[in-house]
């Protein structure tokens, strides 16, 4: 074992990788290097001799699943489909019940790396193009049996799912009910359903020398409204500190919302309705709130302070939900 990682000849990930690439894979050339980041998973960079030549891989191992996250085989299928469609993401090569092996891609996934880029507009354009490329994958063009069936109305499906999650809790959350009810008021008509990343934000992008090296963490991918990814990218949750709270950089901490939506619309060849994005931004905050509740329970169960603190940071998300609900309903506050 090395840093909690099994590296023997019989290690499941080595067997799976060897089978997938169809070549001889020897023991790692150097001790696996655990990579930073990942709250639900652990990652190691592994340099392996493949047919006598050193190749670099990343092993992603499950720590746990949360809310609607995918199991690893399903996550592999989605990332593979995205890679084959030309989305910038490390090539996934092998998987097991609790791991994925992918090619190593250079860069840092720290949110600070995104905020520190010299040309945020250029990176925003790159991200918008990447998202538009992903959103070209539709259920009629791509079979992904690992995912739940495409919903006829993604918004209504999500509201129902979130209410079910609230019903499973021991206390009521009126602010979340307030926001969910507002989303039923004049919702945008169901739009096209596409493959959504589900967690498209700083922290899940590899940035190398100011440019996008790859999109990571596909465990929340699903069929949905493309504006779900756009709304998620624009959420303001200071507890997670990826946007930094600046309205001028409302889109992912990089650029203004309008600028990003413009980049996306040009890349997708499809106009973006700001009101539809607002709907999904409110939905995104409701999702964050539910994440916070789940993380709190896990933190308490596991004795981890930072996770448990998510429960207290719920108030930040609730403030945003109240503000966005006013905007959605057209309340002049």
């Amino acid at each position, binding site marked *: 074992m090395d840093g909690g990682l099994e590296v023997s000849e019989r290690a499941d990930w080595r067997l799976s990788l060897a089978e997938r690439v169809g070549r001889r894979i020897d023991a790692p050339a150097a001790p696996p290097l655990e990579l930073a980041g990942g709250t639900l998973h652990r990652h190691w960079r592994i340099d392996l001799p493949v047919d006598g030549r050193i190749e670099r891989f990343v092993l992603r191992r499950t720590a746990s699943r949360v809310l609607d996250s995918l199991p690893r085989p399903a996550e592999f299928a989605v990332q593979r489909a995205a890679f084959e469609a030309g989305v910038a993401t490390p090539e996934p090569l092998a998987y097991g019940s609790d791991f994925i092996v992918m090619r190593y891609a250079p860069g840092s996934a720290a949110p600070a790396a995104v905020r520190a880029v010299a040309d945020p507009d250029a990176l925003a354009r790159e991200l918008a193009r990447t998202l538009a490329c992903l959103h070209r994958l539709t259920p009629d063009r791509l079979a992904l049996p690992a995912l739940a069936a495409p919903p006829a109305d993604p918004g209504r499906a999500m509201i129902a799912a979130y209410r079910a999650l609230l019903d499973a809790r021991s*206390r009521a959350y009126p602010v979340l009910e307030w926001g969910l009810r507002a989303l039923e008021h004049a919702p945008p008509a169901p739009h096209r359903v596409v493959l959504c990343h589900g967690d498209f934000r700083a922290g899940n992008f590899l940035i190398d020398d100011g440019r996008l090296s790859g999109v990571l963490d596909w465990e929340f991918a699903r069929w949905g409204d493309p504006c779900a990814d756009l709304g998620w990218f624009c959420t303001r949750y200071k507890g997670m500190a990826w946007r930094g709270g600046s309205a001028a950089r409302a889109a992912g901490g990089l650029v203004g919302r309008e600028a990003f939506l413009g980049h996306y619309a040009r890349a997708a060849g499809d106009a973006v309705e700001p009101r539809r994005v607002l709907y999904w931004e409110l939905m995104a905050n409701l999702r964050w709130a539910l994440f916070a509740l789940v993380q709190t329970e896990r933190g308490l169960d596991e004795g981890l302070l930072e996770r448990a603190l998510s429960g207290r940071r719920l108030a930040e998300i609730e403030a945003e939900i109240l503000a966005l609900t006013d905007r959605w309903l057209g309340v002049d506050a």
Partner: protein
Amino acid sequence: MRDRPDVDALTALADAAGGSGSGPDAVALAHAIAAREAAAGAAPVDAWAARLARLYDASEGEPAADPAALERRLAAELRAGALDRGPRRAAVRAHLIATVRAKLAEVAPDLIASWSLLDEVARP
């Protein structure tokens, strides 16, 4: 009103955080929340319970209704659309704003200014 973890659990986690890999920022935040809660005492929770009782027309001198039960009732009414319009809607909105503001005052008082609607309610 106050979200989980309660202050005892929060303090215990912060005290034990040395071995859990939690950073100093989290420990400092936990202790700051505990200190602000101790300073505020029961007043924010009492105010929250009183607002809920007013929303449901509890008269002076009546046995106090369980605020958690009133909160569940409020959530159910919201979901059912019973508060979509009408004279009680503004009072409910004000209650929700006041509750979130009171929680932020203990968790992240520096963030209150980030949302202008939080200024609509009187400070406790």
